[in-house]
């Protein structure tokens, strides 16, 4: 119960405080026009709090509470007086007096280890450089501001460096009084020298301040959490050693990473040419080209190349390319190829399945239910999804019943294919389906519907192969025991067997992201103007033609958006490999590699270098996004 109370109080405090600060600052600037003295006093007090608060946080002042309270009083008083005084000489006097008072306060409360020993050379250099820079800045900013005020500020900064920061801190109490009083006087004079703002100017301040107030929190958090850390990480990537004593090492981290066989190795590359996958890809591609050439010659849309980009030829080529990708990524191994493989298969499957569901569900019965259920995994955490799919993939010992869906089915198929009765029944059923499909193919041939023809023939091929396996050598999770000659169950170790365990983990990601792709495609399909579709139909286009020639070109930009979003999401995949294998069994990915190196081995240099590789991976996506936004916003 205590913990509930503490949690609730924490939540309310965090939210309330942030809200109060924002509203408070806005209210403060509301005062500028009508109650300027109050505004001025508050600003003076706030600056005193900030300066003394920072010194307090750095443990540079003794008795911080008393000093801060007095500083607030002086700041508020000086601010109020400046807010009611218009005559320039008096303003200057008030500013300088207030600043000097604050400086003396600082001098009296500064801890002894901060007492500077005054050095005339440093002071002269500091003042010259400070005022010089202020003058240059004044010119660079278009000579808009008050020159004297700027020069005084520049002198104050120069004094701070020359008299305090650049010297040895072993001075006397008198020296710190002088240093702090001069600093305070310079700043105070700079403030006091500024002209008294008239009504118009105050109105301008009220308006102009809003953009800063509105943007400041966002820009602060974005720079603190993204921009500055990004720079520091790039810098850390060139360093090595333990986190306390890092030293420069140039590109060594990167060359270490890229020569690590765990990160990328081509050993298996020659093995690719003896893999079934590769040759299946080649066959598909060759058939695809042949079909394209053949339809192109018999009058398809050749585009003058004699090659027809029809559903048939394109899907064969795409299938070939996909299989080729899998052949490559199962033979070239390591963390980087793994990440590329993740991107490759998640994009292929999530985009095609998402598009398929969006098209199939569009205007069909129960569209909303179907879409909700496909979309549902989007709400589930990667951790939850990993646990869920571990249950699906689990492999029990051969003698036990399988409790995972996949292995249970796989072992059951194995049993069927080893029983004459069962395999006959399966073969008969498959045979009937094949006959039906052949009939469909024949009708499609007559109706000159190439898509249906190609699709049904492809399914017939797969089913025919299944019939062969059932009747012939057998299929499924079984093996013949070498000892007894018995047939025993042989479950697949989905999570342990490399390299395909990677793919089984990608399935989890695909399961989640298909819903994302579907939702976006669905919205895009619904946004296709109906007039276009109707016009196409009136012109006699079939449903398939309408889809490929009208809908797909219309939603093409959306496909780009989905693909870029997916690339960014997949590239940083971390939770699934972390929970399912923790990078073991050849399943390492960059994000987990980075985490392991940085936070387990405490090698910040290499960890940062891996993070930089991830960043380089998203650069093309960032470029595309920026170009898209430029087009949309700047015209």
């Amino acid at each position, binding site marked *: 119960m205590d913990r509930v109370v503490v949690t609730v109080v924490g939540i309310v405090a965090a939210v309330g405080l942030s809200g109060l600060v924002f509203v408070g600052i806005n209210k403060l600037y509301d005062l500028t026009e009508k109650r300027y003295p109050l505004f001025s006093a508050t600003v003076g007090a706030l600056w005193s709090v900030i300066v003394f608060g920072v010194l307090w946080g750095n443990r540079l002042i003794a008795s911080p509470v008393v000093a801060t309270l007095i500083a607030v009083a002086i700041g508020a008083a000086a601010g109020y007086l400046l807010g009611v005084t218009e005559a320039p000489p008096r303003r200057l006097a008030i500013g300088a007096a207030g600043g000097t008072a604050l400086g003396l306060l600082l001098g009296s409360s500064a801890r002894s280890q901060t007492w500077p020993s005054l050095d005339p050379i440093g002071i002269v250099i500091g003042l010259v450089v400070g005022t010089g820079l202020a003058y240059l800045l004044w010119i660079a900013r278009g000579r808009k501001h008050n020159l004297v005020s700027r020069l005084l500020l520049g002198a104050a900064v120069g004094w701070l460096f020359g008299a305090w920061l650049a010297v040895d801190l072993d001075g006397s109490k008198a020296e710190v009084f002088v240093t702090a009083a001069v600093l305070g006087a310079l700043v105070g004079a700079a403030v006091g020298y500024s002209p008294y703002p008239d009504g118009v100017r105050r109105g301008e301040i009220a308006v102009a301040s809003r953009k800063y107030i509105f943007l400041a929190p966002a820009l602060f958090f974005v720079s603190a*959490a993204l921009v500055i850390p990004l720079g520091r990480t790039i810098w850390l990537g060139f360093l090595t050693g333990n986190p306390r004593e890092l030293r420069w090492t140039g590109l060594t981290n990167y060359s270490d990473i890229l020569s690590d066989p765990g990160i990328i190795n081509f050993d298996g590359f020659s093995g690719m040419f003896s893999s079934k996958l590769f040759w299946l890809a080649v066959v598909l591609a060759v058939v695809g080209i042949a079909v394209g050439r053949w339809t192109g010659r018999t009058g398809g849309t050749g585009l003058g190349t004699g090659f027809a980009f029809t559903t048939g030829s394109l899907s064969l080529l795409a299938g070939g390319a996909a299989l080729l990708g899998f052949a490559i990524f199962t033979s070239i191994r390591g963390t980087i190829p793994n990440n590329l493989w993740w991107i490759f298969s998640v994009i292929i499957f999530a985009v095609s399945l998402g598009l398929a569901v969006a098209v199939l569900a569009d205007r069909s019965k129960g569209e909303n239910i179907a879409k909700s259920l496909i979309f549902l995994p989007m709400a589930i955490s990667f951790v939850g999804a990993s*646990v869920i799919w571990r249950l699906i993939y689990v492999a029990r010992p051969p003698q036990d*019943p399988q*409790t995972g869906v996949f292995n249970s089915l796989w072992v059951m198929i194995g049993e069927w294919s080893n029983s004459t009765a069962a395999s006959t029944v399966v073969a008969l059923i498959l045979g009937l389906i094949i006959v039906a499909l052949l009939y469909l193919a024949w009708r499609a041939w007559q109706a000159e519907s190439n898509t249906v023809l190609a699709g049904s023939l492809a399914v017939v091929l797969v089913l025919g192969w299944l019939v062969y396996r059932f009747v012939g050598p057998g299929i499924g999770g079984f093996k013949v025991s070498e000892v007894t000659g018995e047939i025993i169950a042989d479950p697949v170790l989905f999570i342990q067997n490399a390299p395909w365990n990677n793919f089984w983990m990608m399935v989890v990601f695909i399961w989640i992201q298909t819903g994302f792709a579907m939702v976006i495609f669905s919205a895009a399909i619904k946004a296709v103007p109906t007039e276009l579709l109707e016009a196409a139909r009136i012109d006699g286009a079939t449903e398939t033609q309408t889809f490929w020639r009208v809908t797909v070109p219309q939603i093409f930009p959306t496909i780009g*958006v989905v693909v870029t979003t997916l690339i960014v999401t997949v590239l940083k995949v971390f939770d699934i490999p972390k929970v399912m294998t923790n990078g073991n069994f050849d399943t390492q990915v960059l994000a987990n590699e980075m985490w392991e190196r940085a936070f387990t081995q405490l090698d910040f240099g290499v960890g940062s270098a891996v*993070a930089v590789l991830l*960043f380089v991976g998203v650069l093309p996506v960032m470029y595309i996004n920026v170009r898209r936004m430029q087009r949309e916003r700047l015209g």
Partner: protein
Amino acid sequence: MTTTADRATPTTESRITQRRPLGKRIYGFLRSIPTWLLWILVIIWTIPTFSLLVNSFRTRDEQRASGFWNAFRDEGFPTLANYDEVLFPDVGAGLGNALLNSAAIAIVATIIPIAIAAFAAYAFAWIDFKGREWLFIGTVALLAVPTQVSLIPLLSTYSNGVALTLPIIDKTIQLIPDLDLSGSIPAVWLTHTGFALPFAIFLLHNYIAGLPKSIFESASIDGADHFKIFWRLVLPLSVPVLAAFAIFQFLWTWNDYLIALTMIGGNREALPATIVVASLAGEFGAREHLLTAGAFVITVVPLAVFFALQRFFVRGITAGSVKG
């Protein structure tokens, strides 16, 4: 009676007269395969979640002995024993405590970025200033930056503060003192806030910039300043997009694993539920049966949010992705 008969007759007749030949019917059936495919896909997509739900109500022995489809043959199904064991700290994993932490993280890390992003989105949309376009594009471009690039510097800021060593004079100034934030929930709040902003600003800006210009003009003629316009007009009008982003961010922070793991690390008191479940998953053994209940507990909150507010969620995802 007669009316029903009258209505029924023509349909029966037409069915008989329009009865198509066998071949046509098979063809028609095969043409309906796409619909079948859709529903098969839907079932496949639902099975994993469903199996988790069923298994979480089965005892340890039953979970090990047979698949979830045998649940209804079990004795004593359904049982709440797993939930009992996983939620309460004395017996099990202490997920109850972790759920509180998850709530604390998710609620604050949802509200604060929304507020900050709303101010910024308003400024980018309706306050004119130099370099506005570039600042906006630069901010939003950061939404592609992977979290990983920030983890090391952020963690060291939280645990050691930020010290700047000045060149030439070789003095170190502590810009941000050692706040000892690592291992605490505020560290996670701050990190989530920073990472959420580019997307939040993008989403909110798209909506706020699309509000009709006339309302701003008439409001400023009436003497309202930016703060009043924002507070009285923009916030109430933007409720749909604020809700969309809130759901998004809530799910993202509730489901987050990486940031909490990095920033909270070894502080068991402050760990959110995802980490507790993930560490259960890492045990492989005695408490494996608790995993189903644990995973379902951390899933049920986002699912409830999702089903209750699906409309907003979908709007949030599609906004900005589809033109128009």
